[in-house]
């Protein structure tokens, strides 16, 4: 099978799954729908694996499998092929997408078995898969944009899947609109790039951009990167556009796992890894990205500490982790960003699925205050969730440790990085450890607070298997990216396979300045910090359950600020959206109805008034008419004779 056909199959399989399930959307047969969808996803995964093997067999410097199906848009010099490229970056992405995707599909069969519209759900899921694949495989920015909007669309559909609840429908809309704001930025970024470099093709861009760099003329590139970052911020939930992601938890939990943790939200990171060659030309933009990422990470992590909804906590955690990734992008650590993307996909998908399993077991209960002590009811879930927990708080040798530490180290050592960034990253890591442990503690440990009429039960195998697989991945997923300093001391000196793999395709930033000692000590510091805060959380929520309240009371307004998510939503609604709606109403009323229309009526009224005048003059008196004539003659004659 040649690669074009493989790529086609890869793309078409979910599409066929979508059409199959979409056309029989009324069906209640979750197993058939799930089987088809999962099958489609699995086929894609197989294709991805095959492509990977093909790619590996190619020489390092030319690991590209390209195919152009047809010319999509061709106007003037703008030539956009419907083309896809599999290279070192996209292969990782498609492996994650189809791999994790398949698992989540599998999980969904069980999860959605009692739903009213399983076919619809799987159709959307497949459609999402298709769009995500287009996003990462597209060989030019516009194709990426196609997928970019497409995944947004599917996200919209899936968040609002249970649309009869207005809040859920609203969440979907919020997600789409927020994404659209980003998309607008993406568009402008594309325009700038197009008119600066004359192409939107990734390979062409990579080829052309350095030449521009020689001119030292980077203004447009900076602007382009900032606008693209707006797009990425929308998609990947960064400040100021992160607000949609917590709300997006309104969707079914597998959706949260797939879209809002593992794949879609990382698209922004992917974009910048893809455009690393451009981004490195814009150091100012990188700085903005890094700091925004860091701040997002911190902010989301702090919010995570105060939340009670299991999925919300995970959502804020996702935002926070995405912040990490952007921090990595911002400091030029593209492989690190991509690496964290991958490990995060594993453990966050795992945790979401785990939470799904919990919610499933708890009969749609999401409030962790009503859980506790679930480990004895849900052993598989508990164990796998534990893996995820360890991974995310960065305990070696779990996956998260390697990727997160890599980022922190780069933030410290990269020429684009700074101590401040590192510090924020470290604080965030501490917070992460705290809120994740809190989550574990309240859900699985301690005393059960489950209401008596709920009888938690372990999930069926279709749900368990993905958990187990992802759990394993969360443990071992990081081992392909072992940092140099650790690799050195480990037996067999495992190299940083991941970084090497990406090396040919991402822009090189000059090596960090830092000694191995420093790296070790920072590593130790952050792990220690995580450990301390994890213990602290354990202490708070398991050993002395009364303490959190006391602390919260002691913190007072600060706590309320964080608990209410810094009032960002309130700010957006109160200060931007509602005024906009009111202003629109005012515009409609005062400009359209009362001004333009009134102006029209005024013309009518004017004529009407004149008509009244004419009618008054036309008074029916013969002698008045004679007078008009006489006056007419006199006036005409006066005018004629006087000149």
């Amino acid at each position, binding site marked *: 099978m040649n690669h074009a056909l493989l790529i086609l199959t890869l793309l078409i399989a979910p599409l066929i799954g979508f059409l199959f399930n979409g056309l029989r959307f009324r069906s209640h047969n979750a197993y058939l729908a799930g089987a088809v969808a999962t099958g489609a996803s699995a086929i894609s995964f197989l294709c991805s694996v095959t492509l990977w093997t093909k790619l590996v067999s190619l020489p390092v410097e030319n690991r590209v499998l390209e195919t152009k199906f047809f010319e999509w848009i061709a106007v003037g010099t703008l030539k956009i092929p419907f083309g896809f490229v599999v290279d070192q970056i996209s292969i990782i992405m498609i492996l994650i997408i189809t791999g994790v995707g398949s698992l989540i599909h599998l999980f969904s069969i069980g999860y959605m078995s009692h739903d009213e519209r399983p076919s619809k759900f799987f159709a959307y899921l497949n459609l999402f898969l298709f769009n995500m694949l287009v996003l990462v495989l597209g060989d030019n920015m516009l194709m990426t944009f196609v997928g970019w909007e497409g995944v947004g669309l599917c996200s919209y559909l899936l968040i609002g899947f249970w649309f009869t609840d207005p809040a859920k429908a609203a969440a979907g809309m919020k997600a789409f609109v927020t994404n659209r704001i980003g998309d607008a930025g993406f568009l402008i970024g594309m325009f700038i790039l197009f008119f600066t470099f004359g192409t939107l093709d990734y390979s062409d861009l990579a080829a052309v951009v350095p030449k521009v760099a020689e001119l030292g003329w980077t203004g447009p590139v900076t602007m382009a990167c900032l606008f693209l970052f707006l797009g990425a911020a929308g998609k990947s939930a960064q400040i100021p556009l992160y607000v949609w992601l917590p709300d997006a938890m309104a969707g079914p939990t597998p959706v949260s796992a797939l879209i809002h943790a593992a794949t879609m939200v990382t698209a922004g990171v992917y974009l910048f890894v893809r455009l690393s060659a451009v981004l490195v030309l814009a150091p100012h933009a990188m700085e903005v990205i890094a700091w925004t990422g860091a701040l997002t990470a911190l902010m989301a992590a702090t919010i995570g500490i105060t939340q009670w909804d299991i999925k919300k906590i995970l959502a804020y955690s996702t935002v926070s982790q995405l912040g990490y990734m952007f921090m990595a992008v911002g400091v030029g650590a593209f492989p690190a960003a991509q690496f964290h993307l991958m490990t995060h996909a594993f453990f966050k998908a795992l945790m979401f699925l785990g939470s799904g399993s919990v919610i499933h077991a708890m009969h749609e209960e999401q409030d962790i205050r009503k859980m506790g002590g679930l480990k004895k009811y849900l052993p598989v879930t508990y164990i796998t969730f534990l893996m995820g927990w360890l991974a995310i708080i960065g305990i070696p040798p779990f996956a998260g440790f390697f990727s997160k530490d890599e980022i922190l180290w780069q933030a410290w050592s990269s020429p684009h990085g700074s101590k401040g960034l590192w510090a924020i990253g470290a604080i965030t890591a501490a917070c992460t450890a705290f809120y994740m442990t809190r989550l574990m503690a309240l859900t699985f440990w301690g005393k059960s607070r489950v209401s008596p009429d709920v009888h938690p039960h372990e999930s069926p195998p279709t749900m368990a298997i993905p958990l187990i697989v992802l759990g394993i991945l969360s443990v071992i997923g990081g081992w392909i990216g072992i940092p140099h300093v650790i690799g050195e001391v480990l037996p067999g000196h495992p190299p940083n396979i991941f970084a090497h793999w990406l090396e040919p395709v991402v822009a090189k930033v000059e090596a960090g300045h830092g000694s191995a000692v420093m790296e070790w000590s920072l590593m130790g510091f952050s792990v220690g910090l995580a450990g301390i805060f994890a213990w602290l959380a354990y202490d708070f929520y398991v050993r002395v359950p009364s303490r959190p309240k006391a602390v919260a009371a002691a913190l007072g307004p600060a706590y309320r600020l964080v608990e209410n998510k810094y009032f960002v939503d309130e700010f957006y609604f109160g200060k931007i959206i509602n005024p906009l709606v009111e202003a629109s109403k005012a515009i409609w009323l005062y400009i359209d109805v009362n001004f333009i229309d009134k102006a029209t009526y005024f013309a009518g009224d004017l004529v009407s008034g004149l008509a009244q005048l004419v009618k008054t003059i036309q*008074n029916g008196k013969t002698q008045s008419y004679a007078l008009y004539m006489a006056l007419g003659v006199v006036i005409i004659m006066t005018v004629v004779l006087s000149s």
Partner: protein
Amino acid sequence: MLDTEALMRIGLGHYIALSGIIFSFGMIAVMMRKNVIVMLMGVELMLNAVNLSFVAFAKEAGNLNGHIMVFFVMTIAAAEAGVGLALAVAIYKKFHEVNIRFFEQLKG
């Protein structure tokens, strides 16, 4: 200031002035009298004034077109009088008065 010489030398101007005055009286009758028959008389007066100026001009111009015109005008004036009076009679039959103020139905 009065140019007695010019005033004494009776010429066309004098007749034009006379006809103008009579014409304006006719106009005033038409425009101001309420009795339709007097209005008709006003029209006659106007036509007569015109006749005067025609005749005066005919003398001036030295041809008879003016006279022909006067001849026609007189005939037409007579016919007009006939028509007008017939209308007046029709009005009178209905309202027992011949006041123009009855004719203000059509307006606006």
